[in-house]
């Protein structure tokens, strides 16, 4: 059974009726259980849980402290290329956008990497658009072989791969996969991804399974918040995480909570996700998944990221540039999206220290 089957099981589920029926008692029950089931999570994501946000935050803080301590792990993204065959309506890199396209040469990859490592960052996340012709797996592998001499951990956020391709990259030095389903709503997914390889919902949904079967060490999944009703999206994200946790217990699992940020496209998301909504999602997921990492990127402002320390977040990007060549090259492209927290790595570290937490730059090394 794949996660697709789990999703299909909810096809007839009446979310509206469920949310209407949730009571204070349901919320208090979920808040006080040691182990939450699926519908407890959905109760905590309902609007009825909003008055209990402080209690959720307190419990989330306690669980996070016990499981992760007073530390926040830092990483930075490195965009290798922005060529893309997809037409995702919301994305700055989509094929139809008349933007400058670039793919870093290996010497350029090294220059960018040196600029990043000089800031103290030791964990790198490499990204590309979806173009098997311009940025094929062989290119990714060459980049990984180069980068593993510079960084202690390499994660990939690229197009979904075949199992054997994941294996090839793992053997080259990749230890982490980040892959967002964007939305778990299949109809909306079809609308937002009208053509290109990304239009295959199931192939993308099963990609984390393929990577885990090949013994990927860590995995981060997420939904782009704002595309659909965040309560349902966070619910399916939690279910997806639990499905993966049970099936691949040796994988270090994280969930990411990216909120939509403005891009060069004029796309406007259908749903707004406020700060209180984000906190509700984060704390509900923490209660549901006490051991999972929670990732908040530079899509969020410095002030909000500071406020979120202690509420459940365990990983943050720092000093991020979303342009190809953004760290030090003279020729750089436009960014994939607008970065809200433009602080340098030193400032992010200081922010975390000021909150009484330790910024951790190295938490793995290639074996």
């Amino acid at each position, binding site marked *: 059974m794949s996660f697709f089957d789990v999703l299909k099981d909810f096809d007839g589920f009446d979310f509206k009726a469920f949310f209407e029926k949730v009571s204070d008692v349901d919320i208090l029950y979920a808040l006080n259980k040691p182990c939450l089931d699926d519908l407890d999570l959905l109760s905590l994501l309902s609007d009825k849980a909003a008055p209990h946000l402080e209690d959720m935050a307190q419990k989330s803080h306690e669980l996070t*402290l*016990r*499981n*992760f*301590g*007073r*530390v926040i792990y830092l990483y930075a993204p490195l965009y290798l290329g922005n060529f893309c065959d997809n037409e995702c309506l919301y994305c700055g890199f989509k094929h139809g956008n008349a933007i400058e396209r670039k793919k870093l040469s290996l010497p350029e990859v090294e220059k960018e990497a040196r600029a990043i490592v000089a800031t*103290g960052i*030791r964990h790198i996340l490499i990204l590309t658009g979806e173009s098997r012709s311009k940025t094929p797996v062989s290119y990714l592998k060459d980049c990984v072989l180069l980068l593993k001499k510079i960084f*202690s951990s390499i994660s990939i956020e690229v197009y979904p791969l075949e199992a054997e391709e994941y294996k090839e990259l793992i053997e080259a030095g990749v230890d982490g996969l980040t892959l967002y389903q964007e939305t778990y709503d299949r109809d909306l997914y079809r609308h937002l991804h009208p053509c290109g390889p990304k239009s295959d919902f199931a192939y993308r949904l099963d990609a984390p399974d393929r990577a885990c079967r090949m*013994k990927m*060490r860590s995995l981060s999944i997420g939904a782009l918040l704002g595309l659909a009703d965040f309560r349902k999206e966070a619910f399916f994200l939690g279910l997806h995480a639990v499905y993966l*946790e049970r099936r691949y*217990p*040796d*994988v*270090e*699992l994280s969930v990411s909570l990216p909120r939509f940020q403005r891009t060069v496209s004029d796309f406007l998301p259908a749903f707004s996700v406020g700060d209180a909504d984000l906190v509700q999602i984060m704390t509900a997921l923490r209660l549901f998944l006490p*051991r999972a990492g929670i990732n908040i990127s530079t899509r969020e402002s410095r002030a909000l990221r500071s406020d979120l320390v202690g509420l459940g977040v365990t990983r943050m990007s720092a000093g991020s540039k979303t342009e190809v060549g953004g760290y030090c090259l003279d020729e750089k492209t436009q960014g994939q999206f607008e970065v809200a927290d433009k602080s340098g790595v030193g400032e992010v570290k200081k922010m975390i*220290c000021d909150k*009484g*937490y*330790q910024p*951790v*730059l*190295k*938490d*793995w*090394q290639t*074996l």
Partner: protein
Amino acid sequence: MEDALIIAGKTIKSRFLLGTGKFSSYALMKEAIEASGAHIVTVALRRVDKESKSEDILSFIPRDRILMANTSGARNADEAIRIARLARAAGCGEWVKIEVISDNKFLLPDNAETIKATEVLAKEGFIVMPYVNPDLMDARRLKDAGAASIMPLGSPIGSNKGLRTKELLSILVEEIDLPIIVDAGLGRPSEAAEAMEMGCDAVLVNTAVAAADDPVLMARAFALAVEAGRYAWRAKPALVNKYAKASSPLTGFLR
């Protein structure tokens, strides 16, 4: 030294071992190590950063302590072996805590893989301290494989639930001729004292210290509790009686 704890021929000055994860800063971690008097300090190799002079965890470990690298992140014996070798190459010495975890939800150790790693690393000259579920047969296998101690869990890592495995621990204390060090799950100094009172040789704590509001004070509290528990064990406590001793005994007429 009176009542010395000896592991691999070396006299260990404190029966309280401290882990170094989860602290809010390395400076605070160092203070906690110093306040506790812990002689053996564990460090995850994954956190060691020789590239960074200002932020390498090793530079915050007092030099007079025994550094014990742990293999945190290892999912099987092969990875644990590779991490131990990398640790030695990075200057972490011969002491290694084997930690093999193939289930990230409960963080329970994988005994079978731990035994395999112990066999290989002991032959390579490491002083191997395996973290395991408290199982008598596995403890015997580990001893045969060359382990220098057995480190069974009190309850799952980070759970602060205390000595939930007490019955099994007491069997190891009785049967295994190696230091038994309770590792993981202790949440309160009183639980550490209880482990020592039942005859365990030492305890290792991390989360309960690092996650306390005042980790330095808590480190000291654990060290004192461990010492008190050891004294109590040596003093051979009077037996616990289920019933009060009758002041008019039934057999009094026999005197």
